[in-house]
């Protein structure tokens, strides 16, 4: 693993999966991200931590293409393509997956129908043959077993009436079925008890396996998820900037000391 100070410098641009340069983003005339630089190589696990309101979720949303944000400057390259020019669905088809902090309920569409449609859209985009109902069913069964997904949840409408834990588990289940190149988990650990947390973490680890291709970005406030999904790199986002990067030990330091020392180190001159 590279040393903290030399982080990101030794890694070649060409092999990079995600490269974010100087990304500045506003919402309602308020600048939330202020020049983010961030890179992910295939096979790496990154954790982005930071106090509430630091811009973590905004960063995840902007990468996934949620509307309502103004990109002021910067460039995002994903798998060699200009990510910011792609529609949200094409970003997904290119292999960028966002596990939502608040998974959305969609009454009327069964989980199975939804996931089959999604998978086949992605396969079509990649020029692969679509799966028929039988093939899809077989795949689902395999993945359900893998993440311990209750089969009753499969035929229920997407996230409709699911408990918080069930929703998060459903996100991770989708992750294992869709097998993207990059999984961004936005506060997937929030609101989970320790058992649910383990199950979710286990799902992410199963998705990742020992793949040198698949990468993970964990957006989290707490260190505890990192006990189960061990990151290669930890970044601290504060006030719309990545102010510190390091190895997994940085997470322990944050756990121990909290975020105050980060805030102190990055104090801004008072606004006029």
């Amino acid at each position, binding site marked *: 693993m590279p040393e903290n100070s030399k982080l990101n410098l030794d890694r070649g641009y060409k092999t990079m999966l995600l490269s974010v340069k100087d990304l500045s983003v506003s919402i309602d005339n308020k600048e939330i991200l202020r020049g983010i630089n961030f890179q992910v190589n295939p096979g790496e696990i990154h954790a982005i931590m930071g106090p509430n309101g630091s811009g973590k979720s905004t960063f995840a949303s902007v990468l996934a293409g949620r*509307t309502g944000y103004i990109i002021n400057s910067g460039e995002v390259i994903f798998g060699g393509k200009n990510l910011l020019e792609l529609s949200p669905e094409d970003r*997904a088809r290119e292999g960028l997956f966002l596990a939502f902090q608040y998974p959305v309920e*969609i009454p009327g569409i069964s989980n199975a*129908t939804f996931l089959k449609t*999604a998978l086949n*859209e992605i396969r079509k985009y990649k020029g692969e043959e679509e799966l028929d109902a039988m093939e899809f069913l077989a795949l689902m069964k395999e993945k359900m077993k893998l993440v311990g997904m209750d089969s009753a949840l499969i035929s229920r409408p997407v996230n409709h009436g699911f408990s918080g834990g069930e929703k998060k588990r459903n996100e991770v289940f989708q992750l294992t079925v869709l097998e993207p190149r990059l999984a961004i988990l936005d506060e997937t650990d929030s609101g989970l008890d320790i058992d649910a947390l383990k199950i979710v973490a286990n799902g992410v680890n199963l998705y990742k396996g020992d793949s040198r291709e698949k990468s993970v970005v964990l957006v989290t406030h707490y260190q505890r998820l990192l006990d189960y999904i061990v990151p290669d790199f930890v970044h601290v986002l504060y006030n719309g900037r990545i102010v510190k990067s390091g190895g997994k030990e940085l997470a322990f330091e944050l756990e121990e000391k909290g975020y105050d020392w980060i805030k102190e180190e990055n104090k801004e001159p008072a606004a006029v």
Partner: protein
Amino acid sequence: MSTDEKTIEKLANSEYKYGFVTDIEMESAVKGLNEDTIRYISAKKKEPEWMTEWRLKAYRYWLTMTEPGWQNVRYNPIDYQEIIYFSAPKQKTKLANMDEVDPELIKTFNKLGIPLEEQKLFAGVAVDAVFDSVSVATTYKAKLSEFGIIFCSMSEAIQNHPDMIKKYLGSVVPYTDNFFAALNSAVFSDGSFIFIPKGVVCPMELSTYFRINAENTGQFERTLIIADERASVSYLEGCTAPMRDTNQLHAAVVELIALDDAKIKYSTVQNWYAGDVNGVGGIYNFVTKRGICRGRNSKISWTQVETGSSITWKYPGCILQGDNSIGEFYSVALTNNMQQADTGTKMIHIGKNTRSTIVSKGISAGRSNNTYRGLVKISPNAEGARNYSQCDSLLLGDKCGAHTFPYLEVDNPTATVEHEATTSKIGEDQIFYLNQRGIATEDAVNLIVNGYCKEVFKELPMEFAVEAQRLLSVSLEGSVG
């Protein structure tokens, strides 16, 4: 404008693929309505004197009536003297068989996806094809007659089955019922007549396809379906019209009669031209549909998928007269652009232990207005009657409206009446969630809308459920973002 709204608008502006006009020699009545017009129609159809008199009585009654104005729709007054009340493709002699149908008409129906050659039809569906004011062909007549089933045009029924017409025509919807029913009774041109004899389960789906072609012509069809004791039938009606920038009036009357233990299932996929994005043109669809469960244990079920028409105004209902009879109403009404719909049902419980179910799904997009209006009436003698109503509204975008007017009149203390209503909006969050899983916005909206309508679609005959889904997605094309 959010992306969501943009897509909604885009979806809304899709092409109406049935908007073409057939160039064919027509024979029409002169514009306007008076007793001569009615005599002309009646003579054209070589009707017996009693039928002409029946029409004239209805006309004279209509003259005393005023057009209703209580509906939640707006339109410019209709000039009843500007309408042509009868228009038919010219045909020299009476048709002996299908080979003699004008090839231009066969081509038209082929283009609409309704081949009139029997072997080409959906397996197991018999079709009566109505073009403007007349029925041009009815398929599988011979096969059906082996079962004693009568499936023919209303004109033929008046000629060949006068006793049944005299007994049943106007028995469920009398000409005094409402303004448009009176007008229809005076000038109705054609439509379908079905009689299923005692104990016969109709071996195929029966279907009528209505096509308006001529300009400035009103379509006033009349359908009458009778299921005798223990008989059962499933019927489907479909309709389209050319795109024109003037409004055309369609004022039909449908009557269903179910005797003891009989079952009638009536499905409609209504796709009249809806007018353009700005609400210019389109069909005024002012229709009276009613069934009576006259016998014990009988059942009438209405399923409608309404996507077309500039204005839709109709309340297919059931009079539950026989003890233990059942009425059902399943509806999907979609309005887009400037469309207006005021639709729902009437369930009139008279017999003991009668049951009714109402499931209404309204979808509004564009700048349209969609109203559910329903009456559930429990009469004093309807011991143990039960009703369950569910009215859901789905809004796409923020310029459309959904309205619900349920009327409950309960005059028997043993009755159970339940009403549930929900209003929801396709949220940007839902669309984004589906986008993020690789599903494009239009497909996302279709998925959500189809999921929302599932309860109704499952009531449709198989082939038509697929057709209805497709139709819905076409009607929504360009409507979301």
